[in-house]
């Protein structure tokens, strides 16, 4: 055939290890040899002495299970997973008696073994890659992994899972009429109650049992007497994870999906139980009910398992960061509660804010703590002592739970960062009006803060103050730019330039310092320039593009670079975790494959270009 006329099939193949290693011509050759087959749920493939043609199976869509002859689950396979490696010499009889069953309708691409044997004969250089993929599969026999499908829940949107039926009633309707509407008209376990077109409350069948039947309440009374108000709702674009944790937090079983006061559907716990295992939610829930610091510390391994699953599942890096941040929030909140229980009720209002990567929702396995406490203006000296003690307890306990203390001491336990709001506003004023180098580090850490506990209005007040300052002082952004571009991405990395020389990390690339932080810095600059409320790097760039100070193309480029580099870093951390060593940010350039090498070079170029653009845009005029 002339050009590739099976673009979708070959493109799919070319992304899958080890086919991604093959040159395009061989990928095409393999692609054109494929046989496509479809299994309905429950259908089975048997491997064994049957002499008909054998295939390497690639799951295009669907989920399959492999079982040993005795019925023991060997592995669970999802989209892009491969099985049927018996063409490899040492595995010849390995699959005898095994069977694979479709547990969802499954579309399979099948590559004939004869084709692969021939390929490996002609190109023995790829034999190792195929063998290692098979080994990985065999190893997975030891610990049944989650299929990609199950991992998928993390980044599914509420709208993809929720059902479309929910009763919508008005506040003046009688309890009985509402019950009828729920039971008969809509078969919905929850009704959304509106008053003058605005959602004012909810009622569930559970509430009906508790508040109406058990109490013998008059069912001709209006529903507004017994409804839950205000209504807890979710948005169609929220992640399932966010919605589910909301349900846990409020101890409710269903959550109406609402946008602009329009009720679009209902998300219930049964949707979640039926369709998915929500590991992260279970962990967050466990954290909430754990009573001791030791107990929390023991959950670290579960946290790691979730991180691994997310990275392996190729979940978008932004989502990984958000999930890990939700978990870190849960630890942090629980520990603050424990501290309050130990020290007694706080003497006044306060808010615990997180800063840095935690505030940006870009948490990973290496994230350390960045935090602060904001107190009301005229707080007494003795009251301040209470918060210093509280912060010391929390910060040390976080450390015990695997969130290391911040080496720069940007933590609420440092008295300097546990201050009344008037001192904080003065800090910001000083940083913005007098951006000397020594101050800049403090400034950048606290340019993104997020309140996770206590009176959030204190941190909002501070945020408004910061934007007012920035709008009146353009030189500050310029200083941030000058500071940030003093480090440049190592464009010549593969000519052995700009690597750490000497020491433990000789000849290694510090991917955090030379790539990731540069993008995060640029994101902060662009985000602050448009007074974006968002703290996340991706959202900051997106806000800047909306306000037209960043072109759509530049946005796409920089997001692509950011995601690629973050993913590289996550994978590097994952590898370390799997080998049982401490994850770090140092990657040996030699370990990059061709694909990564080219992409990394592109990413560096993109960062470099954006640094230049920022210099021009934010320079003093």
């Amino acid at each position: 055939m002339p050009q590739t006329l099976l673009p979708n099939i070959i493109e799919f193949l070319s992304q899958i290890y080890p086919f991604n290693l093959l040159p395009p011509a061989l990928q095409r050759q393999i692609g054109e040899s494929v046989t496509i087959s479809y299994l309905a749920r429950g259908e089975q493939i048997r491997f064994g002495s049957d002499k008909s043609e054998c295939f390497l199976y690639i799951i295009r869509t669907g989920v399959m299970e492999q079982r040993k002859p005795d019925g023991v689950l060997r592995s669970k396979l999802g989209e892009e997973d491969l099985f049927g490696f018996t063409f490899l010499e040492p595995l010849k009889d390995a699959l005898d008696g095994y069977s694979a069953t479709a547990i969802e309708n499954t579309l399979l691409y099948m590559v004939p073994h004869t084709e692969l044997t021939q390929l490996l004969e002609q190109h023995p250089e790829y034999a190792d890659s195929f063998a290692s993929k098979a080994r990985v599969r065999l190893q997975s026999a030891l610990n049944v992994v989650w299929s990609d499908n199950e991992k998928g829940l993390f980044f599914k949107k509420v709208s993809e899972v929720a059902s479309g039926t929910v009763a919508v009633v008005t506040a003046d309707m009688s309890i009985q009429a509402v019950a009828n509407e729920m039971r008969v008209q809509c078969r919905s376990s929850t009704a959304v109650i509106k008053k003058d077109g605005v959602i004012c409350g909810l009622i569930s069948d559970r509430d009906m049992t508790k508040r109406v039947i058990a109490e013998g309440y008059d069912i001709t009374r209006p529903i507004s007497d017994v409804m839950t108000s205000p209504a807890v709702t979710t948005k169609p674009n929220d992640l399932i994870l966010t919605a589910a944790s909301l349900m846990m937090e409020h101890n409710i079983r269903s959550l109406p999906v609402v946008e602009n006061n329009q009720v679009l559907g209902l998300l219930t716990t049964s949707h979640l139980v039926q369709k998915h295992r929500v590991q992260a939610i279970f962990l967050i829930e466990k954290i909430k009910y754990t009573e001791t610091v030791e107990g929390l510390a023991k959950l670290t391994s579960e946290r790691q398992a979730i991180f691994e699953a997310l990275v392996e599942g190729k979940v978008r890096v932004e989502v990984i960061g958000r999930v890990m941040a939700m978990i870190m929030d849960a630890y942090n909140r629980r520990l603050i509660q424990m501290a309050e229980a130990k020290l007694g009720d706080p003497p006044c209002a306060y808010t615990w804010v997180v800063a840095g990567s935690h505030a940006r929702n870009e948490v990973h396995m290496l994230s350390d703590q960045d935090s602060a406490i904001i107190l009301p203006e005229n707080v007494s000296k003795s009251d301040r002592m209470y918060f210093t003690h509280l912060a010391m307890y929390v910060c040390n306990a976080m450390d015990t739970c695997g969130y290391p203390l911040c080496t720069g001491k940007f933590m609420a336990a440092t008295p300097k960062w546990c201050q009344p709001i008037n001192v904080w506003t003065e800090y910001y004023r000083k940083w913005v009006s007098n951006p000397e180098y020594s101050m800049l580090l403090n400034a950048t850490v606290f340019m993104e803060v997020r309140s996770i506990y206590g009176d959030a209005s204190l941190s909002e007040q501070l945020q408004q103050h910061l934007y007012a300052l920035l709008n009146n002082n353009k030189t500050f952004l310029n200083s941030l730019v000058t500071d940030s571009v003093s480090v440049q991405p190592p464009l010549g990395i593969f000519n052995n330039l700009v690597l750490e020389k000497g020491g433990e990390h000789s000849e290694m690339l510090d991917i955090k310092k030379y790539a990731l932080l540069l993008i995060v810095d640029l994101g902060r600059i662009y985000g602050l320039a448009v007074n974006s409320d968002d703290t996340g790097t991706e959202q900051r760039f997106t806000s800047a593009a909306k306000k037209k100070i960043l072109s759509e193309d530049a946005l796409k480029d920089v997001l692509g670079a950011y995601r690629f580099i973050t993913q590289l870093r996550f994978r590097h951390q994952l590898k370390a975790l799997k080998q049982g060593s401490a994850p770090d940010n140092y990657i040996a350039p030699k370990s990059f494959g061709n694909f990564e090498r080219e992409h990394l070079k592109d990413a560096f170029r993109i960062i470099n270009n954006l640094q230049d653009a920022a210099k021009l845009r934010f320079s003093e005029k």
Partner: protein
Amino acid sequence: MFTRFKPLAKLGRARAKVIASGGLPKKFIGLLEATLPSESSNIKDLEFLAFDLETTGLHPENDHILSIGYTVMKNLSIDLNSASHCYINSGNKVKAETAVINQIVPEMLAQGISLDQAMDQLFEAMQGRVLLVHGCCVEQQFIDYYLKQRYQLNTLPLVWVDTLSLEKSLIANANHQKTGDFRLSAIRQRYGLPEYHGHNALMDAVATGELFLAQTKRIFAKSPQVIGSLIKK
């Protein structure tokens, strides 16, 4: 008992009649003499030819075939080894708007083969196979028009299966409705089949084949999978 009135039996009689009438060009004789499946033939034992035509429009009198793609299905699997695709060079007839839809530009057609060559290949591939298309009207009309113009022949009695009408009757059975989005991509999405972005005759033929496989699982969940139930009465 009433096999005489079944569509396949009817096709068989029609074939015999065309052959007996004489004057049928030699190249079509094999096509019509090939064994017809019976109503109770298992689809697992039959060969299908999933194919698709890309055209400049819907009207064979004014529009032209731009490309043809097909792939063979046997044992209920799509064998890409058998896949074939060609562009048809019949002068510069690509309308700008169809070029956008089909992503076919004159340069591609310039490297193509003649319509006669392409149709000969297609007829050869059809031999002994059940034809499988999504929305068979267009394909049928263009083929009929070609046969009429080139050979003064009427419709050839071939066995067609149409995934679009299968879907319509599936939905009609399930929901008592016949409206909805019946484009190939929309139906595929409902079946959880992958989204195929590119758009060419071969990819569409493969996509149709996959959809057919998925549909058969639904149609024959418990019953024997016989061809008779897939053909329009």
